């Protein structure tokens, strides 16, 4: 897209602030493609060429620059490049799981452009940040604003399936609020791809947990790439919650999650491999927790 003018696109906009963005959204009820880093869009020639209206979000500070650390969490602009999150000292301290995930995405060049909002809007079950946002119980702020307020939605209210979101018409992801987990929380994120960089996950797994007096007080488990929608493994979670973490319990949890997920066979992997690895990753995570 050298010329900034995709072939079939009627218009490309680059609103300068949130008001301009919302005014633009108000005028165009349909067919808007919002773009931040465009790392997913640009490599899909057919998709960007068929986009009717492209809206570049990188001049809207509220989306591209917001990084507000509050007492209980952080508010991140949907278009903030992942590398800014990776470098941010407080995010590194309070959300190491998110930082680690961002580090494993694509390559440094991709991290310099890609954003959380883009990862969500692309709605790929292989989107690496999605399981992590799910276990962190992130809250999405959706524009355009109604009466000056963004609508607040959870990830599973937005990401509905492969390539499917509830963001119809002119709606966009503005910001993401991520509550801080307790400082002593256990966290784990791992993706398994065929290679170490620039690989789309075959399977990933995010785990966030908290123990109290040797028992699991809270645990959140979310696999990626294995289900059409990003959903937590609630049956497996309930098998663990309130229980002491033991080797037997770990093996049971592994067996449970292998039954709970229903991975599909597609271009990247097969049901057989994915089910097996989801269990293996959970086992790896829980053993790490048990040992530290």
């Amino acid at each position: 897209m050298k010329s900034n003018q995709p072939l079939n696109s009627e218009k490309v906009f680059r609103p300068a602030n949130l008001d301009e963005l919302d005014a633009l959204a108000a005028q165009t009820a349909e067919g808007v493609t919002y773009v931040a880093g465009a790392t997913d869009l640009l490599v899909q020639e057919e998709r960007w060429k068929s986009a009717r209206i492209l809206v570049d979000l990188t001049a809207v500070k509220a989306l591209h620059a917001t990084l507000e650390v509050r007492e209980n969490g952080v508010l991140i602009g949907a278009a903030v490049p992942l590398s800014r999150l990776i470098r941010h000292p407080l995010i590194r301290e309070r959300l190491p799981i998110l930082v680690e995930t961002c580090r494993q995405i694509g390559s440094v060049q991709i991290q310099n452009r890609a954003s959380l909002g883009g990862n969500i809007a692309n709605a790929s079950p292989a989107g690496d940040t999605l399981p992590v946002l799910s276990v962190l119980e992130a809250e999405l702020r959706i524009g355009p604003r109604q009466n000056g307020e963004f609508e607040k939605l959870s990830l599973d209210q937005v990401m509905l399936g492969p390539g499917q979101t509830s963001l119809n018409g002119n709606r966009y992801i503005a910001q993401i609020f991520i509550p801080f987990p307790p400082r002593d929380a256990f966290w784990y994120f791992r993706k398994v791809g065929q290679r170490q960089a620039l690989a789309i996950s075959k399977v990933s797994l995010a785990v966030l947990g908290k123990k109290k007096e040797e028992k699991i007080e809270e645990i959140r488990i979310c696999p990626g790439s294995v289900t059409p929608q990003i959903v937590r493994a609630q049956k497996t979670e309930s098998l663990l919650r309130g229980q002491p973490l033991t080797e037997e319990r770990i093996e049971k949890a592994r067996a449970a999650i292998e039954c709970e997920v229903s991975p599909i066979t597609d271009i990247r992997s097969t049901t057989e491999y994915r089910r097996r690895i989801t269990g293996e990753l959970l086992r790896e995570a829980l053993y790490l927790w048990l040992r530290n």
Partner: protein
Amino acid sequence: MKKSKFNIVGKPVIRQDGLEKVTGQAKFADDINYPNQLYGVMVRVPVAHAKIRSIDYSAIENHPALTTICDANDIPGAKKVGPIKQDQPIFCYQKIVTPGDVVAMLVGESEEELLRLRELVNVEYEPLPVLTDPRKALEPDAPLIHPELGSNLVIHHPLRKGDVEKGFAESDYILEQTYTTPFIEHAYIEPEAVIAIPREGNKGVHIVGSIQNPYTTRKVVAAVLGWPLAKVRIQQAELGGSFGGKDDIMNILSARAAVAALKTGRPVKIRYRREESIQESYKRHAYYMHYKVGFTREGKIKAMKIDIIADGGAYSSMTPFVTWRTVVQATGPYEIENVWTDVRGVYTNNPYAGAMRGFGSPQPIFAQESIMDEIAVQLGMTPDEIRRINGFRSGSITATGQKLEKHDVNVLTVLETAVRETDFARRWRENQQQTKKRLDLAALEEAAANPGPFILHKEDFLEPEEVLRKGIGLAVSFRGTSLGAEGVDAVAAYLSLQQDGSAYLLSGLAENGQGMRTTYSIIAAEVLGLRPEDIYYLDLDTGYVGDSGPTVASRATLMGGGATKVAAETLRQRLEKVLRRHWNLPETTNFVFADRTVYPENQPDRKIAFAELCNLAYWEGVNLATIGWYSGPKVHWDESVGQGPAYFTYVYGCQVAEVTVNLSTGEVYVERVVAVHDPGTVINLLGAQGQVYGGVTQGAGYGLWEEISVDQGFIRELNFDQYLIPTSKDIGEIVPIFVEGEERYGAWGAKSLGEPTLELTAAAIANAVRNATGRRFHHLPLNLEEILLGRKLYPTSKRGSV
């Protein structure tokens, strides 16, 4: 070390074309445009095997975006081409034999429009049974890919030495195993691009492109046009990677562009997108290899019987030569008295296979080095011990009956160097002793097949630290240098000194990214006492120097280096003659050429600047330009029994791979590869190291990730999102070590390195994985599924997870 006698040779020299390439200034074929230029877009039919009934262009004929259409009817000369057998049509007119086939080319000003129009061409065809399994190609009821040939056999290379049955009878043990390797893609970063420019009057056609072998391209274009060779001029643009891949495909695209350019009278450019490139270009051959080896209790190999089927795909291309290298080298660098080898290349409806870096060696090395390790395990030896017992020494006789002599036969030297560097034997033994406890695969498989809770017992638990296993493995090889008995082996180099001491240099071989221009400049500079940057390397054009054959077979340094040295020495002698006359010195005076000056050997203070000497010679009317010529010694070959001195000399290499395998996911991390090679004399240390870094990484790709899988003739992996090549994060440290053996041939004994670096890595990794896991894998690549489940799982085309 003999290096001390050199001023520049063996030192690290930065590539001449490095700056322009890293700063984006270099002009690749698609950067070059001509006024009035048209584009060519291919028409294909989504079928793997069919008889063409008719091609109907009526829906697009009168479209304003279409300047013309070219198909087989527009070809004045040869309608089919091929380096050995002419079985590949420029445009298909009788049959489609693989989905990459092209029936016609639409020519016009807008590629976008042409891409739309090509969907409207109506090709009527009659589907034929599709043959995809090369092991069934020779069965009596197999569909014939080229019925006029009467068989799907492209070539059969037998090799008979000694008496294998006697050898097996004398053996204490016999091992038998089947190995397979997949098709792989060259994955050059620059897809195909070429422009044909019709020249005025009777001057013919000028072609500029991403072309590996300009002289071969010229032959093909001239044959297709029915023209004399001299009427076709091929110029090489900067080339963005080739690895053996820009030969046949570029010859054919150049011919299509030339046909269209002459038909329209306008320049015609063809450039491929990645999907089209992978779809139509040739691949490395998939091999099916059966090895049977007999050996004594003491570890001496008595007999080896090898049966190999190479999938040549739809066209013969280089299959006869690729498989010939296989038959020569299939037993590895081991002295074996009794050998019986059959290598057969066959046609199928798969994408066609041709030359790729390695050229018939990475496949048998994987098999042969795997089975060597199995012999070691069976006898309780270490892998280096078994190789020490059987490895070539000076005077050894190869499987083809050739005596290895008159050069350093360094198999054991490179082995010992690598073993010492890595503390190999101790670590290998330690890894073998790692806890034998493994995942109960059968139970897990069953559980996966019948989902439901299942309980593992305490003793079944795999502690997290047991999941990561270390492994170390090695592989060794010998490799015949240059073309061998494949054909004529001679190279030209043009060197022209200017009045001020600067120089032009041009060889008939092509810069394909290997750094050859710099290598030749170093050689000329060494002889003349110049610096490499004093030498300006010219653009390759078939009009300037003699046909030097293709730039293949790791022959550029050996052959072109030899020719460059001859040229430089010729000019040096002319300059010496001028200086003797000028200073009135006797015929016996020897001179030193160094630091851009010249002086008599015994009078270091009596110096003349090189530039001044050139000026002197210029005013005396001395010819300061010459063409150096270097031709390889004769080799011969008896095809019926596969015996003869196949190559005039050999190079040797040993690589050790250190890996960590994650038993729970199947991931293999390559921690370190130590690559010890004897390439003869190293000319450019930096260039040589670069060959090792690139070759090892490419070899690791072959070992762990890369595969073109084919579904009914159709390639599944059409772009780099699915065809995965290694990134810099996928491979740890690479340690190149050079053992520079003595050699008579080439410039100061500089031989070959490019292909040896890549042919060993997959085998070394496979042996390291065996050492780590206790399990032997017989089928490349060793991807996650192969390691975890012991088989390949081919995903469907469903894009469930975008």
